[in-house]
């Protein structure tokens, strides 16, 4: 029997795994998807490190938002994840009730958010010269930031793996039951996995898991958010992440630069029945543009490189559910982690790991190595650094993804790491190959080749994201011609 099984390889599961690997424990992370950050949540969200003014005071959301935010400078350095504290603005427009900004400021101060300030139109325009003319005031949140959510998840997972944590993908939980001294998972393929403690970090599946073992029921109401992504040519249009002041017209749409220089517009917030329903809709996308154009008038229509949707696990009682279930000893929830879950992840990971370790009376892991080294980002290196890298490994001298300047060397390393990329999307999230303006049109044949070489697979076995998402259905000329 293992010590801990963490169900869910999103940012919460991976952060918890990494923090738990500070102890001498036998840890396994399982996920139904084929990769880390491949559910509907950690790979497709707003990529914002929130200040903490939004959550109701006294909630776990408020507590972990502010605590998590404060950890980002250190954790992003330790794990070499791009993070920028570029500040957030909550923008009010003509006709909005400006007292809403004061309310947010007061709430933020109660929650312990430092440096909040209300800006008038002149101050706002001085900060963001390209903002729409109907923007009249804003709440300035200097501690707000941006981070790459899937790179953070991958980094946590890699560091966890380097410290002994194991990962098992394509593994969906069918049953979870108490056994003497621990818990038994039966997977949908009939495999059984046992551990003394379980961490439920299953995102939209976290309610179902909790309800298998606890009478303290939890309803998760999947909520979908749709986004547009704008080409990095427009990177310089805005500096900070710009929210809109919630009003009777809606919660507003964000316009935010990402750490990779693209701009995100979104999200919508639509309740859906199916927690895996990451479809985009014509209505949702239209709404994004309609609202975003208040912040950014005349959004260039040619600038869109993709659209996507993420799913948030919205808890029915409105707050995160964290910690051991009162009637299920050794079963620990990190359930209902919707926004600001990404911001809260570092703090949740530390606390959850602490509770699990205490439960197991775990000793410290003396060989724990906190540092994770990122895959070299060729596009960000100086010419001198590039020359050195190519001299060490010629694969860094061949560009595979021309839109994002990603080299073959980076792609090979992404596949060779643990847990490594096994799919086109896995390579994309780790290296940005295929993430740019041509959306993998040029690089996908080459990435398929490299995946085949590294993993010993045939092109017809390569998928976009596991399961039946195959890219190629067979050789030309039929099977006989292939012989």
């Amino acid at each position, binding site marked *: 029997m293992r010590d801990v099984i963490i169900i869910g390889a999103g940012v919460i599961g991976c952060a918890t795994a990494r923090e738990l690997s500070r102890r001498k424990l036998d840890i396994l992370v399982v996920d139904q998807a084929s990769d880390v950050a491949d559910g509907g949540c950690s790979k497709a969200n707003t990529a914002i490190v929130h200040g903490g003014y939004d959550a109701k005071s006294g909630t776990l959301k408020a507590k972990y938002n502010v605590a998590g935010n404060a950890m980002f400078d250190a954790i992003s350095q330790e794990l070499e994840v791009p993070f920028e504290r570029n500040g957030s603005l909550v923008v009010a427009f003509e006709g909005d009730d400006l007292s809403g900004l004061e309310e947010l400021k007061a709430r933020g101060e109660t929650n312990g958010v430092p440096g909040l300030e209300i800006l008038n139109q002149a101050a706002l325009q001085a900060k963001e010269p390209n903002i729409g003319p109907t923007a009249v005031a804003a709440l300035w949140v200097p501690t707000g930031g941006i981070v790459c959510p899937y790179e953070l998840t991958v980094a946590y997972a890699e560091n966890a793996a380097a410290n002994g944590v194991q990962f098992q993908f394509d593994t969906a939980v069918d049953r979870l039951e108490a056994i003497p001294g621990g818990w038994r998972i039966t997977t949908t393929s009939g495999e059984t996995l046992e551990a003394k403690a379980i961490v439920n970090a299953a995102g939209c599946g976290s309610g179902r898991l909790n309800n298998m073992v606890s009478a303290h029921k939890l309803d998760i109401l999947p909520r979908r958010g749709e986004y547009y992504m704008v080409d990095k040519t427009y990177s310089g249009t805005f500096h900070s992440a710009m929210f809109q002041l919630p009003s009777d017209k809606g919660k507003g749409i964000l316009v935010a630069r990402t750490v990779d220089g693209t701009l995100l517009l979104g999200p919508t917030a639509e309740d859906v029945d199916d927690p895996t329903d990451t479809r985009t809709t014509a209505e949702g996308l239209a709404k994004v543009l309609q609202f975003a154009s208040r912040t950014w008038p005349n959004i260039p229509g040619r600038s869109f490189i993709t659209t996507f949707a993420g799913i948030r696990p919205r808890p029915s009682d409105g707050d995160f559910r964290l910690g051991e279930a009162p009637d299920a000893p050794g079963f620990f929830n990190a359930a209902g982690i919707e926004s600001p879950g990404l911001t809260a992840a570092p703090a949740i990971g530390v606390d959850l790991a602490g509770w699990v370790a205490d439960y197991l009376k775990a000793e410290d892991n003396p060989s724990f190595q906190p540092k994770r080294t990122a895959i070299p980002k060729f596009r960000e290196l100086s010419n001198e650094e590039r020359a050195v890298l190519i001299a060490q490994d010629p694969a860094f001298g061949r560009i595979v993804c*021309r839109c994002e300047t990603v080299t073959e060397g980076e792609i090979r390393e992404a596949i060779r790491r643990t847990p490594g990329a096994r799919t086109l999307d896995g390579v994309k999230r780790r290296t940005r190959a295929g993430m740019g303006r041509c959306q993998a*049109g040029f690089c996908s044949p080459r990435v398929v080749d490299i995946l085949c070489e590294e993993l010993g697979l045939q092109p017809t076995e390569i998928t976009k994201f596991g399961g039946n998402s195959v890219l190629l*259905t067979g050789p030309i000329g039929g099977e006989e011609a292939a012989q």
Partner: protein
Amino acid sequence: MRQVDVLIIGGGPAGLAAAIAAREAGVENLLILEREESLGGILKQCIHNGFGLQRFGEELTGPEYAQRYIDKAMELALPYQCDTMVLDVTPDRVVTAISPTEGLQQFQAKAIVLAMGCRERPRGALGIPGWRCSGIYSAGTAQRFVNLEGFLPGKEVVILGSGDIGLIMARRMTFEGCKVKACVELMPYSSGLKRNIVQCLDDYGIPLMLNHTVVDVAGRERLEGVTIAQVGENLKPIPGTEQYIPCDTLLLSVGLIPENELSTAAGVELSPATSGPVVDETLATNVPGIFAAGNVLHVHDLVDFVSEESARAGEQAARYALGQTADNGPAIPVENGFGVNGVVPQRVHAGKVDAPIRFMFRPRNVYKAVRICVDFDGQEVLRGKPHMIMAPGEMATLEVEPQLFADHPDVSKITVRLEVRQ
């Protein structure tokens, strides 16, 4: 830093023609940089025939057309470097490139020809709703998988957009035993050549559905089908006209975009109409010594015109590098008049025109009984010959003789427009 007289970025049809012309104009020290493993560019995967009718008077396949130019380049012993990606071009023409064998290289060029070609517009640019499953490809990516990698992207196909690559792939997939169920076109006309519609769709009973678009994509993992709908005059889907077509592959042939990220880095001004550089009658950009030709300048319909245009750019780059060009002084603007989109060149040195200028553009719509006219400062100075039809799918061209400029020394604005017979 290595000194090069004429550096050509791109070894496809544009780059090859430019390099050959530059050598023939007397430049010894030139270099072609090509990002792929071999020369030829996109023609390598265009295995169908129909290339070269204008240039060679015979119908060649893409690889054959490319080989004519590669053979010529080899005969002239033109220096080239494959597997080499240009990362940066500065306004003073320092070019930074990398390759696995040569490492990081820098070149100081006297003149540069931009010949990077174009890329396909992806699904994301269209905002097609639905799942993000596998099985959705731009037509050119599918063409590469089939013709160069030897693998099929799927078996039951719907094609969105009736550009020529999409039409060609409809036939190609049919030849490989796939069922192509429909070619769906948003506009009331196809942007592809009539011959391709007949020989790639009609011959195989593939319906061309004009005024239709894809409004939903079904399939969680692999594509399972698409919903198409008719569109109204505003190009928006008409509710109630939806129909579902089961398929495992959606190919997109919805437009090509010149690849000008390097041009922008070099300070080259781009035209919103063509997405390519703004050039004068010598194909010179606003940055001295940087020229552009082929699909990086504007998306062509025929490679023959790419070769012709690029040869002119190569020759002009050579003249610049050899110090044979004088400062041309200020240029006057060329404007798009009625029915004209993306005219090239966008500027003319009206006082220095010593060779015919070929104006090229895309008609904005389908026009019948139409001719191209040129106005100088609002006064008509030239009426082209009448055409029965012009369509956005085919480049329209008109040559203007130097004499016309000599006759009008004070011209300050040129307008190219269409005149439709009422």
